[in-house]
């Protein structure tokens, strides 16, 4: 099984490739068209945050890039949380063979506004997170197909 570091552009790229391989799942779920930003607080040993924007078009990821804080407006919505939260979610998906337990879905983790906060300046663009929620969940669920490596000491 491939080992890929999280957070990294490569990790999301691999998920994009898995999306292609699991196209039938996404076709059944429906197309997804949005730019989602994954923000990981304390992503690096020096405590810096990492922002990765993933552009979805129909049943594919067409672009993954690391961006600066100033590029946030390009994203339809931002999902932000600290590294521990993302790690816990990814590990729950791995343990569940591609399905998180009841407490670790994207929607469940973000509903109270913490530990994941979903936000946008435009409520209509924020609502894309709800409109495409199943697709986003399937996207991250594919991480069970790879071995995710987290920063040392975690």
């Amino acid at each position: 099984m491939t080992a890929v570091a999280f957070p990294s552009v490569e990790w999301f790229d691999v998920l994009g490739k898995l999306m292609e391989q699991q196209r039938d799942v996404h076709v059944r779920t429906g197309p997804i068209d949005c730019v989602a930003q994954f923000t990981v607080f304390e992503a690096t040993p020096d405590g810096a945050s990492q922002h990765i924007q993933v552009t979805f078009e129909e049943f594919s990821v067409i672009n993954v890039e690391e961006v600066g804080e100033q590029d946030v407006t390009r994203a339809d919505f931002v999902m932000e949380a600290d590294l521990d939260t993302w790690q816990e979610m990814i590990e729950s998906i791995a343990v569940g063979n591609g399905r998180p337990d009841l407490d670790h879905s994207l929607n469940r983790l973000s509903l109270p506004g913490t530990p994941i906060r979903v936000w946008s300046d435009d409520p209509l663009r924020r609502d894309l997170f709800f409109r495409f929620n199943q697709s986003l969940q399937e996207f991250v669920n594919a991480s069970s197909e790879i071995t995710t490596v987290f920063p040392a000491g975690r």
Partner: protein
Amino acid sequence: MLSSLERVQAPPRPADLEEEAFEAWNASFELNRDVWGEVLEENLDRLARGSYSLHWTNTEFAHWGTRTKPSPRGMTFTDINRSKAYGTIPDRAQARNLSPRGSVRAPYEDRMPVIEEYTLLDKYELWADNVVTLYEEAKARQWNSTTDIPWAELEPVSEELELAACQLATFLTEVEFVAGDFPARWIYKIPADYYEVKNFLTSQMMDEARHTEVFRKRALAGGGGLLHASPAFEWTMKSVLESPTHSSGTYLLNVLGEGFVLSIFRAGEFLAKTHTDREIFRRCMQDEARHVAYGTLELKAYLENHPEPEAAMERMHRFADLGENIMLTSFVDPCALEPMAVLMGGSIKDIDEGMDGVGFLWTTLREEYLQRCDRAGFDRRDRCQIPENLPGSC
């Protein structure tokens, strides 16, 4: 005490109504026999003469030569609307009948019937800039409650939790199809020039049919069953169904009501005690978010394009002042609030703890509603009748 059947006035006997309806229909079409009868005679004569009309091959007033190209995902409404001739949405409907927008219809105007029920004639009363996208999205994201929900994984929970799950499912079974009945009332009033809106509203009806279906199934699947209907819900739904205009009702239903239900569906994953419930709520949430998106931009278009914008704004505010209060009747009804609190708390004993969670949800719901109103240019922040905090909580 009178039974509920005795309290309502008896409707006319169906047989009398039927006779009346047949007579009215006959009279109407007899009255217009000179028009449709003439068309019939001409056609019969032509056939009798062994002649052909072939007038439909005349492309003088058609947009012949149009060739729309599909995008990578297929031939969407957006693709065919790139043609100016077919894709220009008129500010006012050009015909009160079913003749397609872009077809050759002018030469036949005098002989066309008028569908009296087609009364939604202005674009500002129904259009939303996202309606085409939402329609395509709705078609592509349909699901089937019979086969897409992992019913076999529905695990037994305590009786208290099953009672709460079933009451919540009863509430949702009761309220969901108002968002089917409401579009049904208006689809029949929209002429074919605005077919995109008709089609989207049809998809909304299908979504709501599926929601009613899935929650009814959920109530019956776990060893419980349907529980209590509620007068509060019925008054709320009556206020939606009898809204004075399409835009006011769309605001009340799609922005406020469906926004509330969207929050419940979001919270559904919080409430879910099984993967089955989680899947149900998540799929419903996606559908509901489309309806909210249409409602938000429809309200925006209405307020921006109304010929008397200030009067329209004030009227809508007055409508919202009362509408929010009627909606509040449902929001605070025990048949909706208490089962959520029990599911959040984990048991009836822990309902207070659950109520804290519902209180948090309340704050989120209200703020998201106000944000959507802001987006539509409808500032409700100083007039909102929904209390900032769940009544009874701090």
